[in-house]
């Protein structure tokens, strides 16, 4: 595996599988933009798909629902990494097919 892919994998493994203040299941769900309870689900979805639309109120609502700032920090990081990772993997897979098609 290429060096950058190894470093990418190390980053993803750390945030999903290492120690954290949010549970591993919650971090995985945020990474996958999968089902979480509201209001954290709304914030995670915006991080993945509409980050410029995030407001102070979105973050305040998650705090008011009882999540700690460290938990919010982790879940937002996971959501951002998840979306960027889906893009990255899609492109690397497309590249592998294209290179293979070329008979290389």
């Amino acid at each position, binding site marked *: 595996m290429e060096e950058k892919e190894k470093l990418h994998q190390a980053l993803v493994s750390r945030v999903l599988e290492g120690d*954290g203040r949010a549970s591993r299941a919650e971090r995985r769900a945020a990474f996958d933009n999968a089902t979480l309870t509201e209001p954290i689900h709304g*914030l995670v979805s915006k991080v993945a798909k509409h980050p410029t639309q995030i407001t102070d109120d979105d973050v305040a609502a998650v705090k008011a629902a009882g999540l700690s700032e*460290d938990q919010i920090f982790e879940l937002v990081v996971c959501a951002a990494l998840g979306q960027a990772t889906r893009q990255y993997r899609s*492109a690397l897979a*497309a590249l592998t097919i294209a290179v293979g098609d070329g008979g290389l």
Partner: protein
Amino acid sequence: MRLEILNSGYTFGTKVLFAFIQLASRQPVPDAAKLVFYRADFYGDPMKNITHEAMRGPSTWSVGDRELMAAFVSKVNACEFCIGAHTATAIGAYHDEARVAAVLSNLETAPIEEPLRATLRMLQKLTREHSVEAADMHGLLDAGVSREQIEDALAVCFAFNTTNRLADAFGFFVPGPEGFESGAQYLLSRGYK
């Protein structure tokens, strides 16, 4: 920033480091730098490793090309902080403001090499639509972009699709031109480690 821990939740040693950076640069420590120092074992350290490798590691793309990709991806994502930071850094790396401005205003008419243009076009599609197809990659290979160059550009794209999201979610403070220039000088002399 929207989380108080990212404004003030640092260890004594990190606070001292921030004070030195602020004294030396005569600018507040950029929020992008603060973010990677917060509980650095969780995100900052492993993210710095891949970002530094993507932006400064071995590649046939120049540092200027890669900073331009970072600025361009940030433009596609409309991330104000990262556009400012990496436009300034790309200009500094190339010593060519017109080239960077031309790409950011109109990729299709900018006077740049065709392999770079084709690569930026693919990064634009990937960033907007979140996926690309083998046909897109065939087009790039046909345009003379090597497999390694595509992989290198994808790592830059990954790093900035992550950072753009965090800048917007956490609400990074957007400095003025002096702040961006100071940050650019730092990134050009020290990289992302």
